[in-house]
């Protein structure tokens, strides 16, 4: 046998589920910081929308975290 996987496979699933949100959150905060640097007086508005986007993106990773528990019974 070349390789063997021991332990819980759902950990891999969560790792895969975290790739997209990881990139997305990075983009959101990167662009947010850039926007604040360009227009510091719009800080409040930018931060509010930045957090909104962060929250929606992060939801995907969270669903990946709880998905194993949901599909356990199936």
């Amino acid at each position, binding site marked *: 046998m070349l390789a063997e996987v021991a332990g819980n496979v759902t950990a891999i699933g969560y790792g895969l589920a975290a790739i997209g949100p990881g990139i997305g959150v990075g983009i959101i905060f990167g662009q947010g910081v850039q926007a604040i640097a360009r227009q510091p007086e719009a800080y*409040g508005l930018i931060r*509010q929308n930045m*957090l*909104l986007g962060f*929250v929606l993106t*992060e*939801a995907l990773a*969270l*669903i990946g*975290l*709880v998905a194993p528990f949901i599909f356990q019974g199936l």
Partner: protein
Amino acid sequence: MITPTLLLAGISLAPAEPGGFHAPGPEIFNFPPLWAGAPAWLTKPTLLAMLSVVILIVVMWGAFANPKLVPRGLQNVGEIGYMFVRDQVARPFLGKDTDRFMPLLVSIFFLVLLWNVMGVIPIIQFPVASHIAFPIVLAATIYVMRIYLGIKYQGPIGYFKNMMFPPGVPKPVYILLAPIELLSNLILAPFTHAVRLFANMFAGHMILAFFSLVGFYFLFENFGLLGAPLGILGTLVTIAMTGLEIFIQYLQAFLFAMLAAMYIGQSLHAEH
């Protein structure tokens, strides 16, 4: 470069030797009843949840029961907290309806913050929201409320029409957009609202438990020259992670209250 390798080796080799290092699992969230013969529901998390409510009521009562025009002492603190919630959480989403919903939002923000902060207070060290039942109750309250408000202010048909058909989109796109909007508003939104708080607190507590156990195991339980640097590293990471955890706890309380305000705001006015 040698410490991460050792860390990985220490964990993956652990189950092989009896009495070796065991990483903490989800079982650290299960608590027995407080004393023998206590009702099964009376555990540490429920006790902490009730304690937080009592603390919040006492502090808020002390701050606002007898308000003065020139605030002193506790009233100062209370007003700063109130103003933070009003200006940062409520106003951007609720506009002129802010004052009507301030009691709810202040209660939610500070209750969730207190629940979360319980996770880093020495000796207590358990974030209440890492039991999903607690966030579910708060999120369900907001969910029922937003549907009630939406139907009250936009009418039963108008509410679902505004929800499923946001203006400014080409007609054919609605075939795709309408079901997605319905699903995300009625099922995914409350689900992620509760799970976000739960998952962050759960993962945060797990990280803290893991690194502090690394420190404890290699410095006290199984002290050795080879393991000692690893134990010191684990302790240092625990301290750093506690700092990060405090920030995340505040952020999650803020986001929970912010989303509550956003959902209520969406129900009050059709187009955001």
